[in-house]
């Protein structure tokens, strides 16, 4: 509601932050390609991440073809299967989800939601994207080098990751490590921008406790990433040295292909500790932005303020902090000192408390809300259900005694796909439906969107729910084929075939979504500036899509929190954050 005249600036503190010196592009190249505008960088990040994500999606189809119909497809051999698994996992977790949430949504939403004109260091932000693109290209190049990509599994555990029995031992593993190092360098440049922008470049009136939860989620996740990625960086450097220079950081003395290898004296467990010191926070680096975004989707589409905003913020921060002391729950069967398990099981179960607070608060936000079942809301609801499901199986796996028989089975695969695969992707899709109108000025097609949601949501359940059962039967993960086993009943094979058929169907239904994105760009209904009647600042920009510098002449001034929905006595069921109190004086009277 930009047409409301500013009058109530009295009492608002003066601007502490000097207005940003914007870089003004002078040519098409600097405007759209080597752009320093966070919005353009966000779109570049999103498109690159989606493109490599589609590759990972195709890899999952190939894996499902093999698992569902073993022996039918002669073009998939055991080595390739391992390579598909590795690349699928690595791409989805790091190059798709991390890059999309932080580089994509972070770049687009942070400056708009905190009322800044751009990130604080646009040039560094631009470099961040180009280094990320380089990392993706290096990763993709492994498909074309001799030996192909590495087949070590996305966890890349030594010693097998660099021994000659593992596919991709020549080039694959070297390029994978190089790509990870590049990714971390690129991410650090972007991440510093996101953190400093949130901390130091907010507009007048935007206190930390008025930030939309989306910003809180992305901010906390970025801080975590800046502290967790160093461990992966160090692990990658050391593994690269082990492979290239023959150092033995992670390599014990062992016999390779019948001869004693050149290695000796290293500790494979050290790699696992470093990897999971990164790897567990990584789960929440992906989950916290999803938590934040889904809070905003639910509040907006249920026309109700978020329940317990303060607790939601503290829960995000607490989850972020706790996630740094739970990493060894991934290592119960690794051979580490067994009594560590007590500590790590305890901390793991403690994380359930702030997480449960968040789930209850989402549900209580929905309680007696004016729920509009629009596509973003459907995806948000789908997220809650999937996340609760994945979280509950997490309690199984967090306990040592339950984890030991279940580890390395399909149960684990089902668990982490539910909790950090499907659930964040639900939020990504919901968020795209939600913010597409702001990015393009057009609505996505509603009917196609609903079709997309139901196929994706039900399909995801049909794929991953039976996998829990397969895991309980003892079907192992990462096996090329099951062969003749007595403990796996033949029904498991039919179930595998069923899962594969559903997976392919759901995968292809994503084409509907891609079509919708492309079609709506040109033919979609014009959305106007604020189609969802939302309160947060990004919907109050003078132009849609927001122009260079976001806010026209003057920065917005914020007078209230992000969740003034259905305020009793207000003229409309939402009050934008930048609407001064004078325009709503009757509201104060009504509520006090």
């Amino acid at each position, binding site marked *: 509601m930009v047409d409301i005249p500013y009058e*109530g600036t*009295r009492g608002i503190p003066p601007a502490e932050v000097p207005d940003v010196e914007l870089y003004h592009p002078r040519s098409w190249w600097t405007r759209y390609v080597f752009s320093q505008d966070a919005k353009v960088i966000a779109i570049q990040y999103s498109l690159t991440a989606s493109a490599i994500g589609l590759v990972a999606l195709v890899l999952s189809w190939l894996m499902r073809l093999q698992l569902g119909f073993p022996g039918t497809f002669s073009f998939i051999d055991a080595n390739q299967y391992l390579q598909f698994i590795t690349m699928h996992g690595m791409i989805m977790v790091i190059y798709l989800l991390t890059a999309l949430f932080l580089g994509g949504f972070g770049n687009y939403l942070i400056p708009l939601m905190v009322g800044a004109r751009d990130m604080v260091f646009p040039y560094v932000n631009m470099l961040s994207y180009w280094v990320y693109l380089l990392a993706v290209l290096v990763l993709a190049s492994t498909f074309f080098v001799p030996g192909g990509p590495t087949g070590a599994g996305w966890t890349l555990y030594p010693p097998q990751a660099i021994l000659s029995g593992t596919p991709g031992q020549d080039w694959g593993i070297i390029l994978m490590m190089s790509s990870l190092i590049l990714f971390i360098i690129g991410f650090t440049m972007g991440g510093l921008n996101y953190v*400093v922008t949130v901390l*130091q*470049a907010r507009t007048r009136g935007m206190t930390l406790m008025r930030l939309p939860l989306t910003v809180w989620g992305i901010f906390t996740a970025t801080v975590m990433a800046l502290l967790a990625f160093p461990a992966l960086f160090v692990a990658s450097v050391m593994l690269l040295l082990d492979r290239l220079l023959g*150092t033995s*950081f992670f390599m014990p003395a062992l016999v390779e292909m019948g001869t004693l290898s050149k290695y000796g004296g290293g*500790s494979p467990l050290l790699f696992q500790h470093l990897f999971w010191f990164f790897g567990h926070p990584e789960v929440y680096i992906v989950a916290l932005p999803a938590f934040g975004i889904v809070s905003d989707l639910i509040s907006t589409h249920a026309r109700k303020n978020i329940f317990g905003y303060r607790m939601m913020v503290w829960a995000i921060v607490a989850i972020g902090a706790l996630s740094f002391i739970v990493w060894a729950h991934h290592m119960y069967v690794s051979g580490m000192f067994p009594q560590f398990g007590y500590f790590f099981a305890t901390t793991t179960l403690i994380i359930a408390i702030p997480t449960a607070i968040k789930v209850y608060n989402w549900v209580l936000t929905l309680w007696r809300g004016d729920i509009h079942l629009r596509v973003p809301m459907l995806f948000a609801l789908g997220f809650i259900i999937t996340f609760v499901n994945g979280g509950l199986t997490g309690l199984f796996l967090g306990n040592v005694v339950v984890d030991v028989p279940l580890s390395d089975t399909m149960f684990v695969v089902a668990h982490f796909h539910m909790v950090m695969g499907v659930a964040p992707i639900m939020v990504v899709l919901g968020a795209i439906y939600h913010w597409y109108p702001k990015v393009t000025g057009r609505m996505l097609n509603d009917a196609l969107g609903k079709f997309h949601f139901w196929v994706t949501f039900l399909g995801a359940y049909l794929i991953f729910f039976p996998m829990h059962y397969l895991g309980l039967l003892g079907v192992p993960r990462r096996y090329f084929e099951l062969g003749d086993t007595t403990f796996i009943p033949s029904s498991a094979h039919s179930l595998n075939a069923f899962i594969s058929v559903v997976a392919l169907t759901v995968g292809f239904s994503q084409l509907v979504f891609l079509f919708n994105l492309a079609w709506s760009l040109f033919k979609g209904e014009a959305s106007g500036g604020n189609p969802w009647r939302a309160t947060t600042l990004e919907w109050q920009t003078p132009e849609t899509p927001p122009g260079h510098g976001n806010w026209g002449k003057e920065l917005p001034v914020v007078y209230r*929190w992000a969740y003034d929905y259905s305020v009793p006595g207000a003229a409309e069921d939402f009050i934008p954050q930048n609407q001064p109190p004078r325009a709503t004086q009757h509201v104060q009277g009504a*509520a006090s």
Partner: protein
Amino acid sequence: MAETGLTNPGQSPAQLDGWRGIATDWASDQRAFKNVSWGKAMMWIFLLSDTFIFSCFLLSYMTARMSTTVPWPNPSEVFALNIAGNHIPLILIAIMTFVLISSSGTMAMAVNFGYRRDRFRTAALMLVTAAFGATFVGMQAFEWTKLIMEGVRPWGNPWGAPQFGASFFMITGFHGTHVTIGVIFLIAIARKVLRGDFDVERRGFFTSRKGYYEIVEITGLYWHFVDLVWVFIFAFFYLW
């Protein structure tokens, strides 16, 4: 609910004590760290991240050293030099440490003169700092050469655990890279200071942003950090 989010016109919030006060300060309007520029905040956060990198390197080295079954070479012997017939342990490392810590002193003076807008002294002290840094890297190159001549390799050495050479080259190499990057930045910024870029607020070549004398201090933060890291490497690698 509406009131909780509203600004009270004309009333400044009362000062709160203790944790509540800290939380209120942090969460306050526009900036969490008052009077801290973006560049400085960014450097501090970067250094926090870099601290984690060096911590992981050092912890990995310590794990390797503690878990190896082969004896670890004695650093006092390995890093000893024969000078004029005297066998002096750790002498080169001692000189390197002295040089690097001295460079922190000249850097601090450069920051001081920077805020006084004394272009020549600032630039000169930055160049002295860079020279100390380059000397440090040079001595490190000497040390590497000496060890390589004696047969130390990343995959083995004549005296014991192969992880000795691996950790040594990796950690000092990573730190040396930091010092080298610092030297390059010191020279580049000393040039800008000398040319008067920060007095006329000339725009940067890459970023097209105006520069300020604060950049000297931000470079200094990085430089002091690199020195501090060296102290830990010195303690954990050479003195242990």
